[in-house]
C-alpha cells in the first residue's frame, strides 16, 4: 500500500469541477481541527461563505471494536465498551451488561438496580457537561467551560472511590458489580451529598451567562433546524429528537432496571434548533439530580451482587481461600477459555444513553464470549443529518451545529 501524503483531497471522488472563473471553493474541515470533536472530516463546497454541499468522511477512529468483542469473554468485553463513548462510560457498561444478563436469564438485586440508576445518571450529567462546555468553547464562551469542568472533577472523584479509575470505569460484571468493589465506602455518599448540594447553583450560574446572552442567541437560534419527519426517517434519538418535538424517552417508554419507580419529567423542545438542544440538555441535567436523590432514598441495604451459586459471579474471597469448591468455582470463571456460558440465543435491550438510544445486539453461540457483538451507535445515526441541515447556511454555523449534535468519534467509528 502506497503512502501518499497528497492523496487526502481527491477532487474526482468528490464530484467537484474546478472552473477558474466561478466562485465555488472546496474546503477541507480536516480530521485534525480544534472544533471537530474527535477525528471527523467534512469536505465542504462553498460559494463565498455559503455552504452548498457537505460530505462527511468517517473512519479515522475505526479500530474494530465489533471484531475484538468476538475474541473476548463476556466480562472482558466490558472494558472494551467503555472506550466507545468515553465521556459517559458507565452508560455503555450497563447497557451491555443488561443485554448479557437477559441472555443468561439473571435478575440482579434491587440494590444493584438502584445503584446502577444512580451511576448512570451521574454519567449522563458528565456527558452533558462536556457537550455544553465544548459547545461554549467553540462559539467563543470560554468561562462556562471552566465552571462546568470543575464539576466534572467532583464526579471523577466519586468514580475513583468506587472503581479506582476516573474515566474508563468498567464497573459492571454479569450479576452486578465487580466482586471486590461491592461495598461502597461511606465517603462516596458524603461526596455525593456535597455534589448535589452545589451542582444546581453552578447550573444556574452557567444559565445566567448563556441562556439570554445576545451573542449566544444570535449564533444558536434557528440554526440547524431538524423536523419531526427527519427524526423518523433518519432514526435520530436522544436530546436531538426531543428538541424537535418528539416526546420519547426509553426510560419511560420501555423502562429497564427499575426506572419505572422513579419519577421525572422529559423536556421536549419546539423548534429543533441548536438553542433548543442546549436547553433540553440543561433541563435533563436538573432532572438527573432529581432522579439521583430518589434513587438514594430508595436504595435498600443488603447484598449488591447475585448469589455466587448461580455460577456467573465470583465467590466471596473467604470461600476462595478456605474451601475447595470456592477455589474451583473461581478458576472456572476466571481462567482463559472458561467463564460463564450462555445458551444459543440473542438479546437486544434498548437503553437511553445521553446521546440517544444505545443498545447492544449480542448473539451467543454457547461460547464464553459473544458470537456477534453489534453496537447501535447513536452518534452514527445522528451524524447523518448534518449534510441536510447545513445546506444553504454559513460556514460558521457548521461549528455550532456540529457541537450541538454531540458526536463522539469513538462511538461513531467504533
Amino acid at each position, binding site marked *: *500500500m502506497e*503512502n501518499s501524503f497528497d492523496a487526502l483531497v481527491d477532487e474526482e*471522488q468528490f464530484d467537484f469541477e474546478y472552473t477558474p472563473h466561478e466562485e465555488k471553493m472546496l474546503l477541507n474541515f480536516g480530521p485534525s481541527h480544534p472544533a471537530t470533536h474527535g477525528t471527523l472530516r467534512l469536505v465542504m463546497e462553498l460559494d463565498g461563505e455559503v455552504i452548498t454541499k457537505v460530505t462527511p468522511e*468517517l*473512519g479515522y477512529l*475505526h479500530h*474494530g471494536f*465489533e*471484531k*475484538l468483542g468476538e*475474541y473476548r469473554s463476556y466480562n472482558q468485553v466490558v472494558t472494551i465498551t467503555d472506550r466507545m463513548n468515553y465521556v459517559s462510560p458507565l452508560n455503555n457498561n450497563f447497557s451491555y451488561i443488561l443485554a448479557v444478563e*437477559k*441472555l443468561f436469564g439473571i435478575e440482579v438485586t434491587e440494590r444493584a438496580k438502584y445503584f446502577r440508576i444512580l451511576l448512570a445518571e451521574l454519567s449522563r450529567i458528565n456527558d452533558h457537561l462536556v457537550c455544553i462546555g465544548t459547545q461554549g468553547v467553540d462559539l467563543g464562551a470560554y468561562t462556562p467551560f471552566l465552571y462546568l469542568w470543575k464539576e466534572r472533577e467532583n464526579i471523577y472523584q466519586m468514580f475513583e472511590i468506587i472503581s479506582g479509575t476516573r474515566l474508563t470505569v468498567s464497573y459492571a460484571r454479569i450479576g452486578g458489580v465487580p466482586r471486590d468493589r461491592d461495598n461502597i465506602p461511606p465517603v462516596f455518599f458524603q461526596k455525593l451529598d456535597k455534589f448535589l448540594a452545589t451542582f444546581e447553583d453552578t447550573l444556574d450560574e452557567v444559565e445566567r451567562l448563556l441562556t439570554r446572552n445576545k451573542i449566544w442567541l444570535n449564533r444558536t437560534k434557528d440554526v440547524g433546524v431538524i423536523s419531526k419527519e427527519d427524526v*423518523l*426517517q*433518519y*432514526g*435520530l434519538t436522544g436530546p436531538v429528537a426531543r428538541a424537535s418535538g*418528539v416526546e*420519547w424517552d426509553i426510560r419511560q*417508554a*420501555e423502562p429497564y432496571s427499575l426506572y419505572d419507580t422513579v419519577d421525572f419529567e422529559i423536556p421536549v423542545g419546539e423548534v429543533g434548533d441548536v438553542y433548543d438542544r442546549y436547553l433540553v440538555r440543561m433541563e435533563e441535567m436538573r432532572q438527573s439530580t432529581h432522579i439521583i436523590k430518589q434513587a438514594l432514598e430508595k436504595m435498600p441495604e443488603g447484598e449488591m451482587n447475585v448469589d455466587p451459586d448461580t455460577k456467573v459471579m465470583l465467590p466471596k474471597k473467604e470461600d476462595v481461600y478456605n474451601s475447595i469448591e470456592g477455589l474451583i468455582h473461581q478458576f472456572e470463571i476466571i481462567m482463559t477459555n472458561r467463564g460463564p456460558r450462555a445458551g*444459543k*440465543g*440473542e*438479546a*437486544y435491550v*434498548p437503553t437511553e444513553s445521553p446521546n440517544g*438510544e444505545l*443498545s447492544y*445486539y449480542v*448473539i451467543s*453461540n454457547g461460547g464464553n464470549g459473544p*458470537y*456477534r457483538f*453489534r453496537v*447501535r451507535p447513536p452518534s*452514527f*445515526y445522528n451524524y*447523518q443529518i448534518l449534510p441536510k441541515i447545513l445546506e444553504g447556511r454559513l460556514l460558521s454555523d457548521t461549528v455550532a451545529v456540529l457541537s450541538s449534535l454531540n458526536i463522539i468519534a469513538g462511538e461513531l*467509528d*467504533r
Partner: protein
Amino acid sequence: MTEAKNVVVDRVKNAFPDQILDVSENLGETAISVKRDKIVDILRFLKEDNELKFDMFIDLCGVDYLEMGGFERFAVVYQLYSMEYNRRIRIKAFVPEGDEKIDSVVSLWAGANWAEREVFDMFGITFTNHPDLRRILCPDNFEGHPLKKDFPLEGIGYRENFLKVTRENAQ
C-alpha cells in the same frame, strides 16, 4: 403484550406467506427470518400498515453465520420501532454466500444510507439501488471485509505498511 406480538406475526404471515423462514419469540423479543427477495415490500408493509406502523428506523447490521449455522451464510438484520404502539420487531433477511446482493431500503428510510455502506464495508454485501455504495469506515484502498469470520483479527498487514519518519527526514 403477547396478543400484540401475535397480531404482528399473524399479519405478516398473512401478507407474505411464502417469504417467511422462521419466527421466534424468545426473551420477549420478536424476530422474523425472511428470504431476501421481497425485503423492500415486507418493510414497506410493516411501515405503512395501520395496525403495525413501524415507522421508526432503529438499526441495520450484518451477521456472519459461518460457525453457527443459519439458513444462509450472511444475514442483514433490521430493527424497527413503532412510535404509536410502542413495540419493536427484528427482521432478518438471509443472503447466500457467493451471491451477496440484497435490495436497499434507502427509499423507505434515508437513514439506512450509511448503515448499508457499513455492511458493505464490513461484510461485502452489495445493496442494489443504493445511491452511493462505497467504503465508509475502512480506508478506500483496503482489500478484504473485516467482520467476516475468515478475516484475521490482526489484519493482513495494513497496519505495518507506512513510511518511517526519523529525525533525519523529519522535515
